[in-house]
């Protein structure tokens, strides 16, 4: 009897807990003093005390912190033009927005505090109070699973729908209109580099990508796939294909003119319905049917496109722990491969993230370059490097900075110490182009793409081109939002200001990069702290001698032991 009481009590408590959790998962509490306090302590410095996105940190930041007073939220699970759900807001606070300065608050704020903040943020925009119906969620029901076939279809749509214009041929955010884009508030904004899923603000799952298509990214130039922002809205896939065919013809016959005219009428009607719906008008049953049919096509195409976008990025950000990722140059016999040789494909890239230079004025708080990827081969006399980095725009020194009048251009600098520090306590030069200890640099500029200048520096503003320029061979290319730079140098040189290389010796290496279109010039740049580089020694031939020797010895030992025990046994007997 008592047992049953205990069980029913437990059930009751569990049931209540479930109800509480469910309630929590769906709705934020009423705005409270607590929410205001947490907001002002943790959020206001960027988003402003009144939620206008004008906190004291905002002036240095791009993307700008969100202005909450207009109810425009980028990352939503809801349809175009709809407000986000409470859960959407909670998730963004919890997970942050990768690639921007919005950090994840999962450890810094308790879940309760985050819910309080959600409630408080909603007070900045009256639309939350006024809306009577919950925002319309994007349906994920008819998901098309990831498959090669779907990716292929998506690839075609990527071109047809005009994604290329902003996101570029292979998705590196290098489309022709990329440098011209601004957001609702007039601030410059860059299209996402789709090859770097770890920087997608709202996550890189196929569902996340799909939601960005259907819902749009409010406030940004990324349109929601609906109405006239979607190619051939209102046509079926076949009709759309037919219309494209007709449109591609140099001349249409009369019958064809008529046929395409019908398509246009159908599209106009569907677009009108979508507009009416967006404005909250009631749709008739027929209109609703037209709209649903049109959206069915949009949804299907969006899933294919989402699968294609997913195929453009690695699953995870490459491993990048400092100290762990070492650039290992591989030994080859004979000539080193030139830039476009297939031999480079056999090497895995070293991934070296860079951050904005925020130490010395002028500073760069909003880097557009994520990382430098490096491969290297060496032989008995020379070493060759292949550096690749994504840059949305090619700037070759024909633009000047408006405020400083300085020439803007893309560039890369590779930094080594002049002398390799001997022993673990020997200091390295200061990571920002040296200090008391000098650094040796290779400086490449987009305006002279076949040339690398050797520099010696004792500080970021204290660099000089070496008088004796060594024989560095250089090749470079810019294609589809990515630079490739190939540099070859002798392992040993006669110049005392050069770094001398020896297999097996770990050499500190660091990078600076400039994106001219992002205003990078002089100290305003992205840079890395010291990583390690080594000419990976050819594996010792000892590995074929000692292990078998030890194995043979152990067999001998076992036999000896057996013989010893046998002899003693027979003696005892």
């Amino acid at each position, binding site marked *: 009897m008592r047992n049953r009481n205990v069980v029913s009590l437990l059930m009751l408590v569990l049931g209540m807990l479930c109800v509480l959790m469910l309630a929590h998962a769906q709705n934020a509490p009423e705005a409270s003093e607590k929410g205001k306090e947490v907001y002002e*302590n*943790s959020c206001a*410095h*960027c988003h402003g005390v009144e939620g206008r996105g004008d906190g*004291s*940190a905002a*002036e*240095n930041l791009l993307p700008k912190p969100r202005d909450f007073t207009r109810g425009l939220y980028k990352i939503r699970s809801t349809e175009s033009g709809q407000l986000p759900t409470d859960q959407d807001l909670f998730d963004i606070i919890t997970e942050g927005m990768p690639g*921007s*300065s919005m*950090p994840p*608050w999962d450890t*810094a704020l308790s879940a309760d505090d985050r819910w309080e903040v959600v409630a408080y943020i909603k007070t900045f925009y009256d639309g939350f109070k006024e809306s009577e119906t919950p925002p319309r969620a994007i349906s994920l029901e008819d998901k098309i699973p990831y498959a090669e076939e779907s990716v292929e279809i998506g690839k075609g749509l990527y071109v047809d729908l005009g994604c290329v214009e902003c996101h570029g041929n292979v998705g590196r955010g290098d489309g022709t209109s990329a440098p011209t884009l601004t957001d609702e508030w007039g601030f410059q904004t860059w299209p996402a580099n789709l090859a770097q899923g770890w920087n997608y603000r709202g996550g890189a799952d196929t569902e996340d990508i799909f939601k960005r298509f259907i819902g749009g990214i409010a406030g940004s130039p990324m349109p929601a796939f609906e109405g006239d922002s979607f190619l051939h809205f209102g046509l079926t896939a076949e009709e759309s294909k037919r219309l494209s065919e007709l449109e591609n013809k140099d001349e249409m016959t009369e019958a064809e003119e008529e046929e395409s005219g019908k398509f246009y009428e159908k599209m106009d009607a569907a677009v009108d319905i979508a507009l009416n719906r967006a404005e909250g008008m009631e749709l008739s049953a027929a209109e609703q049917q037209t709209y649903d049919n049109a959206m069915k096509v949009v949804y299907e195409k969006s899933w294919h496109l989402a699968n294609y976008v997913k195929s453009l990025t690695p699953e995870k950000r490459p491993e*990048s722990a*400092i*100290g762990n990722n*070492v650039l*290992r140059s591989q030994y080859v016999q004979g000539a080193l491969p030139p830039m476009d040789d297939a031999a480079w494909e056999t090497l895995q890239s070293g991934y070296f*993230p860079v*951050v*904005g230079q*925020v*130490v010395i*004025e002028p500073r760069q*708080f909003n880097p557009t370059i994520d990382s430098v990827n490096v491969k290297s081969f060496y032989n008995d006399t020379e070493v060759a490097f292949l550096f690749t980095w994504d840059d949305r725009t090619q700037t070759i020194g024909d633009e000047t900075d408006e405020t400083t009048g300085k020439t803007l251009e893309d560039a890369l600098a590779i930094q080594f110490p002049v002398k390799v520090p001997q*022993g*673990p*306590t020997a*200091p*390295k*030069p*200061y*990571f*920002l182009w040296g*200090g008391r200890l000098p650094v040796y640099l290779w400086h490449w500029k987009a305006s002279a793409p076949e040339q690398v200048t050797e520099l010696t520096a004792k500080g970021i503003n204290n660099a000089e081109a070496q008088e004796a320029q060594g024989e560095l061979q250089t090749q470079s290319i810019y294609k589809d939002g990515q630079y490739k730079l190939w540099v070859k140098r002798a392992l040993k040189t006669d110049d005392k200001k050069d770094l001398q290389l020896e297999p*097996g010796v*770990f050499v500190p290496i660091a990078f600076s990069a400039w994106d001219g279109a992002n205003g990078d010039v002089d100290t305003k740049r992205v840079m*890395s*702290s*010291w990583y*390690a580089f*080594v000419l*990976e020694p050819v*594996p*010792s031939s*000892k*590995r074929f001698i*000692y*292990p*078998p020797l*030890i*194995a043979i010895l*152990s*067999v001998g030992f*076992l036999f000896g*032991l*057996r013989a010893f*025990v*046998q002899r003693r*046994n027979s003696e005892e007997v």
Partner: protein
Amino acid sequence: MKRLSLFTICLIILVGSWVFLRFVVGGVISVPIPSSVIGMYMGLIIIAILVHISVEDSRFREFLRPVHETLIDDKRRIRRRVIAVLIPIFLLGYTYSIIAQRANPPGSPRDAHPSPPLELTYKDAVIGTMQDVVNPFRHYEKDDPEAFKAHVENGRRVYHQNCFPCHGDHLDGQGHFAPYLQPLPANFQDPGIIPNFQESFFFWRIAKGGPGLPAAGTPWDSAMPIWEDYLTKDEIWDVILFLSDYTGYQPRTFGEAH
């Protein structure tokens, strides 16, 4: 069921302890133990086992019996052959893996909190001795809370215009640039940071940055800027007030002698 032999029991204890230390404590409970410490524990366990089996002659003989049998008893022929193959193969693989291992870059020792100089300076002008200098605005905390609040707010502004990309919105050293810097930016939410140092120490670290570290501050990788080049003296003191106000930790003080 047959009783386990003493040898098997000892073997189980030995292997079991290692698995426990390496995978249960180190993996499941996730308190990784350095391999040298595991080695020490294992050494102790081996000594204990040796003591246990060698206390009596008979026990020692019982312990060795399965070894004897395996070596010479014809009934144990299969086991003998399996062991005679497995041990050399294991040693072969193990020595190969040691010799063929790729070298890793040398680590550098680091003194996270090197000793400051005796005198605190700002742009070469002496402020006072490190021991005696106090934050000139700290007294407002008691005397004039309004003024104190204004200084904290100014410190908040300075922090969020300069420090937060590395030290983080939450002052926890997890700014969005932080993962790519070595050493990691200071975490002011760590109870071991603010309460352990005087405000003059923070002034020194902020004003002089990474390049101002003494020789002991190897490996010279700190990305901390020389803030005296960009911030006024008052701004540095304000930001120190903000650090302690936001985290709730009070910097160390040397109270008057009683």
